[in-house]
């Protein structure tokens, strides 16, 4: 029956040290959606191979003109007998180059902004799909673009009903925003240790300016953990995550930037030396992390989008 949310977070926390394992997108993002919205057959068909890593998943949500404004997506699903054919393009698809399946939001009704979106599971192993990696500012290519030109999307692989895609996507995004923060904490614990060690070796750990900055990073990390436990407690008690998940997404992503910027400040040029270069920190690539930390406030709903959600859906502030 898939992982429970708690197991999910623990799993993520345990695996975070390992190099990004491709099955994480499936387990952490699609997993909860299947548990909440899929049929028994669909779960039987997909969850075991997802857990075993036999089938690797990627997420087909964003499009070149539908980033922050996800509902502007234009990928079309045209009926073809029982099934559908996909026409369009997805972008920022993490792990796309190594995936077997993709879960896709596509339009089954061009005129209904939200109600016209359907959630498909689609095999990437077909000629009508072209995957091109995108190079990131780190130099790596963890994600890519996916082009659909008449790709087959089977009716039996639609999750929920036709037109329910937006609702299901919101579940996926909420889990992406919420339950992941404990997973990131494992990274941050590890990083902060390296920073303290680096400062100690540099001989500046006694400087009060250094101490204050490290203390703030330590304190905020504990706040992040407290928030994470709270979300986890409410998820564990069965509630699907709501707009509150935006708090966690903002907090962990902006913390990760403060942490990396802090390290570049406190460790100086050493933290900008790529791993492998002489004098670099041996076990922590601060340069890459500093760049990566610029991405996390953008993907899975930018900080700006999260603040819109909070002010509109939680604080109920009026629209102009």
């Amino acid at each position, binding site marked *: 029956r898939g992982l429970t949310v708690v197991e999910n977070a623990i799993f993520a926390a345990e695996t975070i040290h390992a190099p990004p394992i491709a099955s994480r997108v499936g387990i952490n993002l699609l997993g909860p959606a299947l548990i909440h919205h899929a049929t028994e057959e669909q779960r039987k068909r997909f969850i075991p191979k997802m857990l075993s890593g036999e089938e690797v998943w990627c997420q087909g949500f964003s499009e070149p003109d539908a980033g922050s404004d996800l509902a502007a997506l234009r990928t079309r699903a045209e009926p073809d007998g029982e099934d559908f054919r996909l026409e369009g393009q997805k972008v920022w698809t993490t792990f796309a180059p190594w995936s077997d399946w993709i879960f896709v939001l596509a339009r089954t009704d061009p005129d209904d902004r939200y109600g016209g979106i359907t959630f498909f599971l689609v095999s990437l192993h077909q000629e009508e799909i072209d995957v091109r990696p995108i190079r990131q500012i780190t130099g790596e290519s963890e994600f890519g673009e996916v082009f659909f030109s008449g790709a087959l999307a089977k009716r039996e692989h639609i999750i929920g009903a036709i037109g329910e895609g937006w609702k299901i996507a919101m579940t996926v995004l909420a889990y992406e925003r919420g339950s992941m923060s404990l997973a990131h904490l494992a990274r941050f614990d590890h990083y902060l240790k390296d920073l*303290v060690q680096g400062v100690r070796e540099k001989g500046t750990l006694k400087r009060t300016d250094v*101490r204050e900055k490290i203390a703030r990073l*330590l304190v*905020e990390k504990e706040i992040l953990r*407290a928030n994470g*436990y*709270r979300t986890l*407690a409410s998820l564990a008690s069965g509630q699907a995550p709501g707009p509150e998940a935006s708090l966690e997404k903002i907090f962990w992503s902006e913390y990760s930037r403060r942490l990396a910027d802090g390290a570049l400040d406190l460790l100086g040029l050493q933290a900008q030396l790529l791993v492998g270069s002489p004098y670099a920190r041996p076990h922590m690539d601060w340069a890459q992390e500093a760049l990566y930390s610029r991405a996390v406030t953008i993907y899975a709903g930018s900080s700006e989008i999260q*603040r819109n959600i909070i002010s509109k859906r939680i604080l109920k502030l009026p629209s102009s």
Partner: protein
Amino acid sequence: MNFELSEANSLLKSSIREFLQQEAPLDKSRPVMEDTEEGFSREIYAKLGDLGYCGLTLPESEGGSAAGAIGLAVVLEEMGRVAFPGPFLDLVLAIETLSRVKDEPASEFLQGIVEGRKSVLLARWETLEDLDGSSLQTRSDQNTVRGTKLLVPFGNSADFLLVTAAEGLALFPRPEEGWKAISLPLLDHAQRLVEISLDAPGTLLCDKKTADTILKEVAQLGALGASALLLGLIEGSLELTLDYLKERKAFGRSIGSFQVLQHRAADMWIRMESCRSAVYRAAWAVENKQNEAPLLVASAKAYCGDSAHFVCGETIQLFGGVGYTWEYDPHIYYKRVKTLEQLYGSTRNQLEAALRSQGI
């Protein structure tokens, strides 16, 4: 760890909230802060005593309600929300100190204090730096206490003082003679900070070593309590802000519809929720004597202080011109925050304590 309040604590929360709405809504409290010499209502404190709030943290055996650290946080959060004036937290800390001194002279009259009939306050500090109070100048023998204590909140209204002296902890009933109090007017006009010079009869309750252990535990409770007060102040201040954002109009629309102000409010809300997580996680750790308690309490105090400064300051900004007037309430919250940032372990000291707790 669970964030749902126990049934007992939810009940506690609703009762204290109801009590404060009845007895001390801000519009009733403001004249007390602004126009009375003592700065709080003895009558209301007596009622708090009758209802058992002063002995909140004491074991039932000592006439308390054993509400523990979480219960204390619940009550102080509500008091912060209405900027409740007076030395409630200080009273609780003094009572906690007394109850930890297992010694006749203490428990003898503890009852009267728990019932709010008499007030006792801690006189710990001798410098402007709110530090651990090592190297004290105050001297005490079995019969007299001699010295000068700085920063005694609402000290002028105390019937008894618990004085830290070089020899240990001394109990000091307010005398006719040999008691000189100089008030130290602060940015926060609701405060009644005094410096007290003593040279009068008092009793040594315990030696320095015992006193230090006790005061360390009590200081942790103080920092936790101050964090809960700060959380409450944030809640009260943000509530004012959201109401104002919704009703105030400019450029033909409610100002709450401007995206820049919406995001500001979102940041204030994020701080509030994060402080709540921090305070109750820390309270839980203290109540359950977790090893991480020192880290979590220090983190909560430091983070709530910074957050309250931000939230209550932004409230003034978002109110615009009226936010700078005496008439409106935002300054009440902002000023209270400024005092709490410094007392019960200043932000700077708490940050250092957090590092130390991790051996850094």
